[in-house]
């Protein structure tokens, strides 16, 4: 089945130790998104890639970066995680074609910062 896959599902890191979260998709969607979701809150968009074009949200901290080496993969890099970065990180994809922009989400990676 076509899907959005996130690895790992759970990630534990130490304060200040860089961490990378991975997202891959078999949907051949041209847009990939990264959201941060804290407990009992709505997801908050960090940034997205429209094909190779990177679009950062104005309030996304510099500590968060992303890479998209090809259509299928997108990475979220947190350079120096702080305790406040502990959250669920959701990857989503969409296909911009005839305005059918429904976003499909992966299962998420839960990040714990010690």
């Amino acid at each position, binding site marked *: 089945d076509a899907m959005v896959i996130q690895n790992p599902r759970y990630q534990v890191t130490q304060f200040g130790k860089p961490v990378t979260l991975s997202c891959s998709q078999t949907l051949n969607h041209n847009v990939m998104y990264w959201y941060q979701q804290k407990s009992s809150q*709505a997801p908050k968009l960090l940034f997205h890639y429209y094909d190779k074009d990177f679009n950062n949200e104005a309030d996304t901290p510099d500590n968060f970066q992303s890479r998209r080496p090809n259509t299928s993969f997108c990475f979220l890099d947190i350079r120096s995680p702080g305790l406040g970065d502990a959250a669920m990180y959701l990857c989503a994809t969409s296909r911009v074609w005839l305005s059918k922009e429904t976003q499909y989400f992966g299962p998420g990676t839960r990040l714990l910062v010690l």
Partner: protein
Amino acid sequence: AQTVTQSQPEMSVQEAETVTLSCTYDTSESNYYLFWYKQPPSRQMILVIRQEAYKQQNATENRFSVNFQKAAKSFSLKISDSQLGDTAMYFCAFMKPRNYGGATNKLIFGTGTLLAVQP
């Protein structure tokens, strides 16, 4: 700026009964999309239903239907014959359509309604 409001933080319904979740939004746009997403505990967020603002007919997906009132800027979700598996956080979301040739637009989420289906 667009906003989405879900005024019911938590709701409860008995199995097999019907429940309606409320959502209102604010926008000056005439064309847009509205979505309901479901996020079960510790599980993946999935699309429940989608409505395009230019369509007057309310969207339906099996037991899920919406009451879309464009003038009132209201977009409620009705779940019929509630099942235990419907227990989840439900998010209402708004999206402007992408301008032709422009960057895609982001989902604006409400704060969510936690629905518990009781046996």
